[in-house]
């Protein structure tokens, strides 16, 4: 077996060894296995000693290490693939966000009372509360035209990316973004929890628009096994639930999670996204983009959710005794700084994608 070029014929003596090696090679990502398994089996069996029926210990550790690195490296395609994976999955995330928003309707509660009071508004039940626009204080989102347009837009974007229609997805994204902005401006003060959630989707729009414009969903969609990204979505939903609904109901009373809670959740989520390529085999680039999205989604929203509800960082200008104008300027700087890391990641991804596309011509990635 170890003789030069002495490849085994698959037969009884080493059938068990080969079977064990094949099982071990399942640690590699699917795409890698499709290309390499037969070849690697040939090499492993050629190097096996006579009578050997179990993988050598050195081979086992080498394959485990190699498979982890392969998963971290991800599928071939570099940044264009990572960006494409993001373009494909982010709209599904947006749809799930809509479902969450509709599933956790804001209720009349002391939470709203405290929110209104914090903004100098009327307390619930007071005569002045009648002055608060009804659309802002408790009607289900599903009765709000802006939300319905937003949700429909997200659904169209998700369907379009799954079908590989980049331009349709972009058009629907713009419409949904306008509806989202309308919704957010109406809700962000009086419904800070859900308003923030609505704001989160706004944070995804620029990332998704850039991903759609530069890479498009098709390269990721062509990959076998891209459906493995669904666990990412499940994770995102879990994090959303944690960030916005962990304290949603105590004795039936909804509470607004603190900005600090949201920030910490965002950091944990981003960290989890970084670790995702190992089980999913998406590669570190895709994980960075996912982490950037999670980071942007939660931390930016928390920082920008207003001086009264934002995290300690968001309240910093107020704590330093800055006036409204200087406070606004300082807050803008804080948000910009928070936004820089995901923007840097994204700009690098786009630059690499554009550079990769140029020699191939425009047809390959065009929808």
């Amino acid at each position: 077996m170890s003789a030069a070029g002495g490849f085994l014929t698959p037969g009884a003596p080493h059938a068990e060894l080969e079977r064990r090696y094949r099982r071990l090679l399942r640690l590699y990502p699917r795409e890698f296995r499709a290309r390499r398994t037969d070849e690697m089996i040939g090499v492993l069996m050629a190097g096996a000693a006579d009578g050997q029926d179990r993988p050598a210990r050195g081979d086992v550790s080498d394959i485990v290490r190699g498979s982890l690195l392969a998963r971290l490296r991800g599928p071939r395609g570099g940044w264009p693939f990572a960006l494409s994976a993001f373009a494909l999955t982010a709209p599904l995330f947006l749809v799930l966000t809509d479902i969450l928003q509709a599933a956790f309707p804001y209720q009349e509660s002391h939470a709203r009372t405290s929110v209104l009071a914090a903004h100098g508004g009327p307390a619930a039940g007071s005569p002045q509360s009648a002055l608060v626009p009804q659309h802002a204080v408790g009607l289900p989102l599903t009765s709000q035209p802006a939300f319905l347009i937003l949700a429909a837009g997200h659904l169209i974007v998700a369907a379009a990316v799954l079908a590989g229609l980049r331009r349709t997805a972009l058009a629907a994204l713009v419409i949904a973004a306008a509806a989202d902005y309308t919704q957010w401006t109406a809700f962000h003060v009086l419904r800070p929890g859900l308003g923030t959630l609505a704001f989160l989707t706004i944070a995804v729009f620029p990332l998704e628009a850039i991903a759609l414009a530069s890479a498009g969903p098709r390269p990721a969609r062509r990959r076998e096994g891209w459906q493995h990204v669904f666990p990412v979505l499940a994770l995102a939903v879990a994090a959303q639930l944690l960030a916005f609904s962990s304290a949603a109901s105590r004795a039936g009373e909804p509470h607004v999670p603190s900005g600090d809670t949201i920030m910490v959740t965002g950091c944990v989520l981003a960290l989890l996204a970084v670790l995702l390529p190992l089980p999913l085999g998406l590669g570190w680039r895709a994980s960075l983009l996912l982490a950037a999205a999670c980071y942007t989604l939660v931390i930016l929203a928390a920082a920008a959710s207003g001086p009264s509800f934002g995290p300690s960082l968001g309240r910093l200008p107020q704590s330093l005794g800055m006036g409204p104008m200087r406070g606004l300027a300082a807050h803008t700087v804080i948000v910009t700084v928070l936004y820089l890391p995901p923007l840097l990641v994204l700009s690098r991804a786009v630059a690499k994608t554009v550079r990769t596309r140029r020699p191939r011509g425009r047809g390959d990635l065009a929808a």
Partner: protein
Amino acid sequence: MQEATFLILTALAQGPQHGYGIIQDVGRISGERVALRAGTLYGALERLDADGLITVDREEIVDRRLRRYYRLTDEGSARLAEEARRLQESAATALQRLDALRPGLAGGAA
């Protein structure tokens, strides 16, 4: 460039080789100091292929098993030559400095 990568490229500088042939050649080149295993080899081949330094030359079925032969690309040859020159220069510098160091050491010990 990692040593394993350098040795794989060096093995392919002799002509197209299949995976097991590369492992054996790397052992010979390194005086049996480096023993490549399949996981390391194919991780490196993936990277080198993706970077355009090697390419598949041909495939054969021998004893019902796939043998894929790899060869250096022009870019791979250039990178190997560049790395070999760099290592040669570094080694030459190291030897020169050791030569210069020896008389001093001898004098200090005296």
